[in-house]
């Protein structure tokens, strides 16, 4: 069909190709059904996900990305035990696109599964659906041997943003796997509690810089000035990425007392860090930092120059 705006036939007519003996024709039928964007196509695509040909099954799993609801979720979950890894990968990706909370009905019964791939995909799928019933199985999944499952479990708990889950997140923040710890630290950002702040401040001393970076970034979300001292210590971190997030967080917290500690960091030969420092110095608007900013008014990096100009203008105002 060559028209710019295609007119689709009846869904049942489009689905006739699914019965063709040739896999190529069946793939085209799947593509046409997906392009129709008609929810009436879902049962046909759910049928195609059990096709004899792996290419058709993969295409059906990809096509279901454009649909939502329990029937779509059930079809995708069924594909997670496919014999072809490409079909499983496509189904797992499509599961993460679900937005209708009702789709969780088809995923929830599988959150007790022990298979790493299936459980990981189901947790990733239910995360953004924010189903409270997922809290218990996600908490249980934190004890799974596979880090990939634990990361997704932390994601589910983090999205639910329930203070009751704080102990579980605090436990995950001390996980043996660095990515689990990093995810848990980022997930703690929703809580304004002292317990969460304590865990975040402790994470600023984590042996892995990516965890320290996440902690420095997340601390600003608390909006609590009691974090300022810990963030000022983080300005001395050996990794500039951690220092950058600490600078940004201090800016968000309006920590004017840190301005003269941040200003000399303009001399560090990392343009991204200078850019952030200039922006935060403008935000904090402390007059004593002007000489540090003026020194970089003609910086080699255009973003630094732009931020310096903005910061000087803001301080002068």
């Amino acid at each position, binding site marked *: 069909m060559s028209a710019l705006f295609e007119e689709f036939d009846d869904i049942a007519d489009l689905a006739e190709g699914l019965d063709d003996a*040739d896999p*190529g*024709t069946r*793939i*085209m039928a*799947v*593509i046409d059904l997906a392009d129709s964007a008609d929810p009436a196509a879902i049962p046909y695509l759910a049928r195609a996900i059990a096709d004899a040909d792996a*290419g058709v099954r*993969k*295409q059906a799993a990809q096509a279901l990305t454009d649909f939502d609801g329990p029937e779509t979720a059930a079809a995708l979950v069924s594909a997670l035990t496919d014999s072809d890894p490409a079909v499983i990968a496509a189904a797992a990706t499509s599961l993460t696109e679900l937005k209708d909370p009702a789709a969780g009905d088809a995923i929830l019964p599988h959150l007790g599964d022990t298979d790493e791939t299936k459980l990981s995909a189901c947790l990733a799928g239910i995360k953004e659906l924010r189903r409270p019933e997922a809290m218990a199985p996600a908490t249980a999944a934190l004890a799974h041997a596979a880090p990939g499952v634990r990361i997704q479990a932390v994601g589910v708990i983090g999205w639910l943003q329930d203070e009751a889950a704080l102990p579980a997140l605090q436990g995950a923040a001390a996980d043996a796997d660095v990515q689990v710890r990093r995810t848990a630290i980022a997930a703690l950002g929703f809580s304004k509690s002292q317990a969460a702040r304590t865990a975040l401040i402790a994470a600023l001393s984590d042996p892995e810089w990516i965890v320290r970076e996440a902690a420095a970034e997340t601390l600003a979300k608390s909006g609590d000035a009691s974090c300022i001292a810990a963030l000022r210590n983080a300005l001395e971190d050996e990794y500039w990425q951690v220092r950058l997030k600490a600078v940004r967080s201090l800016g968000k917290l309006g920590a004017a007392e840190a301005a003269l500690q941040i200003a000399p960091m303009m001399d560090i030969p990392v343009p991204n860090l200078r850019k952030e420092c200039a922006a935060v110095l403008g935000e904090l608007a402390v007059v004593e930092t002007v000489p540090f900013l003026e020194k970089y008014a003609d910086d080699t990096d255009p973003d630094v120059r732009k931020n310096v100009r903005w910061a000087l203008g803001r301080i002068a105002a």
Partner: protein
Amino acid sequence: MPLAQTATTVPVTVNDDLCIADKGCTVCVDVCPLDVLRIAESEDGSKTAYMKYDECWYCMPCEADCPTGAVTVNLPYLLK
């Protein structure tokens, strides 16, 4: 227009045995942002995708979205 006298290769190649342009598939043509792919129809009526214009910028959707894995984008060494 002078024709090239040396053997050349194009970045995007299509496996004719796998291509299902015959069935009406135009996925690679549709997703190409530079519009360099076309469907060729041979004398016997069979169809297959091919690279008509050598302007590829190696963005890869033609390879990634091909439902049968028929399309291959040959990345230059320095882009790998």
